[in-house]
């Protein structure tokens, strides 16, 4: 039982990272119906940007500021990483997706795959083809809450991710820009007629989605301590799955989906080798996708997705 709760805590922290990335997928999908395959690679660029900033500031695992200075460094790193990724997302939209807005449906998908390959290769040129370590500068303190142990990093990850999600929810639901986004998502032409600058709103969606991926890259580094150029591909796949699981196009769904998948993957490592050969860890992806398929069979539009009535 303790083990189970412990794994749920682990799953919760990974899940929030998945959720942050999934938000980018789901926002873009909601507004332009495009699976943005490059999104995972933007996340990877986010981890690399954070590592580079630490490098620029001369911060290593052994020599780094403490106290408020540390918090300042962390905040700046996170913000810069978000900004770089956001601008990257904006540029990608402008170059690779906007010319294809009225093209056949699969053309932007292939374009997205092309961008993903470009970013991945760029990452390998930038930081090499092996794992890059992310300095563990946040003090590691573990707290025992009842039967489970939770570390300070876990708490930081949860706090950053949750505050970003709440911020996003607030922005989409309560601001003018958020209303414009929802309008464009619902009916692009009608929104344009109502005076919404559609191109700007779509650009902004990519901007915000990519910024969230940048933040996810930063906290991923804090949590796991390393990154590699293909990390975005794997995590992107899982995050996209999370977005679909929650109901693609639905922000709350993406968060729920991310957490559910995080917990499933954590729990799957509890499956002993006597049930599945080599234990659950080896089967993690298969288990995630099998559960996804099962859920979609019973809820074809995801957990929180609305059953859209068929237009005739």
């Amino acid at each position, binding site marked *: 039982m303790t083990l189970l709760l412990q794994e749920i805590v682990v799953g919760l922290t990974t899940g929030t990272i998945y959720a942050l990335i999934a938000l980018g997928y789901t926002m873009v999908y909601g507004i332009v119906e495009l699976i943005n395959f490059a999104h995972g690679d933007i996340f990877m660029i986010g981890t690399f940007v954070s590592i580079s900033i630490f490098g620029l500031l001369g911060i290593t695992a052994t020599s780094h500021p403490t106290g408020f200075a540390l918090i300042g460094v962390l905040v700046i790193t996170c913000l810069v990483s978000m900004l770089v990724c956001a601008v990257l997302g904006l540029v990608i939209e402008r170059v690779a997706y906007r010319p294809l807005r009225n093209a056949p449906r699969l*053309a932007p*998908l*292939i374009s997205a795959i092309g*961008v993903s*390959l470009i970013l991945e290769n760029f990452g390998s*040129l930038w930081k090499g083809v092996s794992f890059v370590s992310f300095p563990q500068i946040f003090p590691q303190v573990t707290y025992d809450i009842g039967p489970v142990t939770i570390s300070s990093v876990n708490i930081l990850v949860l706090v950053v991710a949750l505050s970003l999600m709440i911020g996003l929810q607030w922005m989409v639901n309560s601001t003018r820009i958020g209303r414009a986004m929802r309008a464009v998502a619902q009916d692009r032409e009608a929104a344009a007629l109502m005076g919404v600058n559609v191109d700007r709103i779509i650009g902004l969606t990519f901007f915000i989605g990519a910024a969230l991926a940048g933040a996810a890259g930063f906290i991923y580094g804090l949590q796991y301590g390393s990154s590699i150029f293909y990390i975005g591909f794997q995590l992107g796949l899982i995050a996209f799955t999370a977005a*679909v699981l929650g109901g693609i196009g639905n922000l709350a769904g993406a968060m729920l989906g991310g957490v559910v998948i995080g917990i499933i993957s954590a729990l799957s490592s509890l499956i002993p080798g006597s049930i599945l050969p080599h234990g659950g860890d080896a089967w993690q992806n298969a288990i995630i996708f099998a559960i*996804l398929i099962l859920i979609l069979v019973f809820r*074809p539009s995801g957990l929180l997705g609305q059953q859209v009535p068929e237009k*005739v």
Partner: protein
Amino acid sequence: MFLSRSSNILLPASDTRKLLIKWVVALLVPVVVFTLWGGESIINAVISPATASGGVPTDTGSLVAAAIFTVVFNIVVLLLAGYLVAADSGRRGMIELWVEVIVFALVPLILVILLGLILGMALAAVAWLAYFYVRNAVRKARHYTPPPPLASLKAINAEQRSVLMSRAILGGFWFGLTFALISLVVDLAYFFSGSLPTVILIWAIIRTILLPVAGYFLGRLAGIMALRRTLPQTGNGTGGNGENGRNGSRNGLRRRQQLEVLSTTRAREEAKDLVPNDLPLRSAGAQRFFLTLLVAVMLFYPILDSFLFGPGTDGRLAGYGDAGYYVILALGLNIVVGFAGLLDLGYVAFFAIGSYAWAMVGSTQFGFLTGILVNPHIWPWFFWPMLLGAALIAAFFGVILGAPTLRLRGDYLAIVTLGFGEIVPVVFTELDKYTNGINGIVGIYSPILPGVDWSSSTPYYYLILVLIAITIFINVRLRDSRLGRAWIAIREDEVAAESSGVNLVRTKLFAFAAGAFFAGLAGAFHAAKLGSVSPDSFGFGDSVIYLAMVVIGGIGSIPGVIVGAIAVYAINVFILANLDSLASDPNNILYAVHNTIANVVPGFTFGNIRNLVFGIILVAIMIFRPEGLIPSARRRRELQHGNNEEVELGALDVPPGSAEFEAEVHVE
């Protein structure tokens, strides 16, 4: 827009000479270049094997094949000459045609001679892009718009038919004569310089007589072919194919009416294939000849290769064999994505299943699994039934995957297929009791066929050609079948299709099964050719590449998908993967390019930026040709329809202006 009904659909007969010069020159240039490059040495090797230079196959089988190819090549070229002269309306100038022949035939030919097949074709494609760009720029600068293609649906009378016939004959004859004379002059020059054996001189003289005579008769045949593509004259018994005058003329009348009732776009499309027309090189009639030529080249390629490109045939054929199963994979995926419109991101799973099907049966693994002792001399025979077996097993899994996805729409379906594609390799990795896990299965048997040596690449080349031919045949038949139309219907509108009586469950499951079937076929071939399989060669990245092949080629279009598969494979494997080895050769231009970059960026290799370049190419192709390289006819019509907002008068039942039209439109 009304179709033009100009009265002069043929050039006057006196202008035949102009047409002859135009086409004989246009055809001679590439044909002579080809002959001087490799055609001559093929013939020489056939006539006198003793004089053949080194590296060229001189065994009887190869020589017979080479001789057959030469005969086929010459027949097709002579037929083409006759057909083109007859089919040309003469409305486009000589210079324009010659420029196009140079750009589209001579430039690729020369590049292929200089750089080899793949790199040459790739550079030719770049040259074509540059040509289009320059041409459009020039046209824009001079405010020139090309005249719309002749859309005359006027029937031609008996007199005009005889003119066409004589043109065809003259075209074949004059082409044969000039070609023979040029070859004779070249051969005589070589003979007097002493480097031509007498036996070949005798052949040269025979050829000089033979070619014009053959040109005459083949020209007549080409004329008959051209005449079958004309609209027969209404109410005149000479129409049709002559077996039944009245029936023929009624057919002709019906055909013309059909064309006029069609929309402008369709009528223009149809008119493009009639004789005479403005662009005979692009008409369906001429395309048959190109196709014949292409098939001949592909069939005899293993023999031609060493004549054309020198040593190293086996390695090149191995590469083309690998490219071949990508064609099958792309065609199979095209059924699911292109025809039925179901986005499949996990297609690699079926390929993996097909590969493992033969790997587990056709290796010692089978003995471990079942305890049955396998005789390695007889067991590989089992490959042939297992080719079908692997395809059927994959199709079965296609149905299994299809079943839970029936209620899903759009991208929810995509993620389930993606999930399936992720699960299958994990299963193959972790069930190592059966599949040998991450190490994969090695020592998979090659097929057996008496008298065939499977250690070289040639049999695999022919095997994949046969498999591709079967796949194309089934694909075309499926597309035009009731089932194919049901697929297209659910792609366009699921609800409308269902209410029109399409059984969604069956139709979708058939699409998944048919797609998976071809992946299984390709998988079994892949396992046998490579001799080993391992689970990490079947990833999401591979599924994505197959999808890119389909979309880049032109979704739903069979020729497009074939071209797309070859193009993507060639870019990725033949070109980008080979840049480094090319750059290590100091004679190559890439050597200088590499050194220049390496001076700025230390440690630079082309391998490091392979995916970068590939990604840029993918994005660029999509931005400049979002509908794919060769869009399907249906999609092309949709696109044209979007551009052309005019009301299509031909599509209306009653023409506007008539009293009935006013009566219909006028609403109280």
